[in-house]
């Protein structure tokens, strides 16, 4: 398993480098049109709490035991007998004004043209400053890989292959709706409209949106 993980991280790095180059060099930025501005809308009213996304993500990204790129937060609302659970899928919000980017002294974490926040492990020292800075608890240090910081990058290697992120693909009730902010279409567009109508202020200009529970 370890060999495979190393291999994948290797591949990940190669891909990441390619994306980085594309983001930096205007000549190659044409390629980034393919990715455009990916975003995810999570409708918690569709989430059944089955945890498929969590495990699909682990299978895809091989995160260390006990750490997750995406998770389903479970809450208990109300008091017995007027009580119910709440399931809130969450992951990195890919903030444009990302606190993790500011926190990193080594410029190891930065934002691509596509709006995806990535971490370059060749620069990451594993000091954990970004982990502490994230308001969503979306980051962690990978003990299997020199404590370097890891987090969700919308399965950037899958996006390169024109595949949706693993969590999106594996959600049985389609609670995660993936689309392009620059060209919103279909259900994604409808959801985006709905989300923007309820939005007061998006100070971090995030790429992960939640449609909140209609039950209260």
């Amino acid at each position, binding site marked *: 398993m370890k060999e495979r993980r190393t291999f994948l991280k290797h591949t990940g790095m190669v891909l990441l480098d390619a994306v980085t180059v594309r983001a930096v060099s205007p000549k190659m930025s044409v390629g980034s049109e393919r990715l455009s501005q990916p975003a995810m809308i999570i409708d918690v009213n569709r989430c*059944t709490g089955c945890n*498929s996304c969590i495990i699909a993500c682990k299978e895809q990204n091989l995160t260390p035991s006990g750490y997750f790129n995406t998770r389903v937060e479970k809450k208990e609302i109300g008091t017995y007998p007027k*009580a*119910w659970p709440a399931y809130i899928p969450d992951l990195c919000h890919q903030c444009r004004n990302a606190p993790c980017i500011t926190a990193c002294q080594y410029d190891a974490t930065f934002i691509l043209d596509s709006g995806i926040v990535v971490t370059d492990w060749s620069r990451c020292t594993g000091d954990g400053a970004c982990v502490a800075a994230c308001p969503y608890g979306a980051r962690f240090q990978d003990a299997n890989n020199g404590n370097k910081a890891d987090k969700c990058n919308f399965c950037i290697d899958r996006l390169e*292959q024109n*595949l949706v992120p693993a969590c999106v693909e594996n959600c*049985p009730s389609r609670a995660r*709706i993936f689309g392009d902010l620059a060209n919103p279409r*279909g259900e994604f567009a409808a959801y985006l409209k709905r989300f923007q109508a309820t939005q007061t202020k998006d100070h971090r200009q995030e790429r992960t949106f939640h449609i909140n529970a209609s039950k209260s």
Partner: protein
Amino acid sequence: MSDTNQTTKGQNCNRRQLLAGSAFALAAAVTESALGEEKQQVRPPSCYGQAAEITDPEVRVVHSVCLGCNARCGNRQIVKNGRLEKISGNPYHPYNSLGTPVAYDTPVSQTLTLPSPVCGKAHDAVSYVYNERRLLRPLKRVGKRGEGRFEEIKWEQLIKEIGHGGQLFSHLGEEREVPGLAACLSDEPIDPNDPYLGSKRNGFTLITGRLQSGRQEFIDRFVKSSVGSINRIGHTDICGLGFRMGNYAMTEGKQVELKADPWSAEYILVFGANIYEALQPGINTYGAAVAERYAKNEIKFTIVDPRAQNASVHAHDWLPVIPGQDGALAMAMIRWIIENDRYNRDFLHLPNLAVAREKGYSGYANATHLVIIEENHPHNGQFLRAVDLKTVPTEEEKDIFMVLGKSSQPVTFTAVASAPIEGEVEITSESGQKIRVATAFSLMKKLRSVIQWQNIRAGAEFLKSRSVKQPKTLPATAPKRRSVNTMVPATIVTVPMPRSPSLC
């Protein structure tokens, strides 16, 4: 552009075509999937897991069925060099794609790229298979009981010790004689004074989990054919048996797998069914369909369960019923409905399916059907049938129910378009036998036994605590027990759920 990337049910798809699309088309295809024409379920083009693994010559793709829970959704396993690497859904299986599987004759090579979600339990099966704590060899206790110390023993030793027994723990200073299976291999009675217990072979009991296909035959061969015991016990009686027997009684034995239709129902009263966890046809179909429709405000449901199960997340209400009191709650609801005159009187008066269909109903109720309440009658407590009235009955008359006709005479349930739902009369058979009968609805209305009444009170109190209007007439003390030992509810005969073949 997205058109070329969409595949529909049963339509062939070309992987190269799928992968050639741009991210735009990809996103569009995904997001439009739920907005397309309802009958044309559009699938997002995607590739299972790592595309590279699918072209890897060391990888085998195995289609199977998940046993993470008893819903048994289909799964697709990626096996590399004999090791199970990943599990995803099986797009051919009706439980994985919200009830719209790909056509069964679609070549596998064309479906490898189709996503087909399964829940977390299915994905996690890899961890069960390779769990370091999974028992793969027999272990024998080497410490005191409860210490948790065991050693590996050989299969031969295990078989010998279980078969013959003996002082199996003498090495720990225990002189206890452990009986072996051989002690059961005798045709002597267990107790000569109680021949119903059978031979000593029945002293061997095997309690198993789910008797999935193949497992039952294998276990029976050992327990019944080899040892000769009748005691092979499954777990169904504490699982789905109540649900199935309820359906069996309700449909007069025609159907045991009735469930609310997740695609069409506007309201579901969920009694002890884990629709977001394990209920067939599975969370990936039943749960997902309910959740999707809940998000669109198309469905409401109430959970009746001691536990605030996963589905309480979206439930209109959660009724934390006391374990074992589900029936009391249901009876209290029926009582409230009757006493507050909230039942569909016109519907209940329809005695058979033909007239019910004419009136636009898909089923009919047996509220008008007569029940024998004659203590000494051999069919006391059962429905009155034509056969009970005839001196020389025909075979068909065994299945013909009776209702009250004009002048309180019994007529066959198909002979009239409407019949009274209330009434208790004495009728006379051809042979002159007097039989006391009452309509099923009357009996339901008159349920008064102490146990039933206490249960109903408990349920009513419960309803009261939920701010539901209470029945008007609740006596302070339980009335005297009556001799009516029948409990034939006025039930509605419904049609089976159309889209989900159930396997249990």
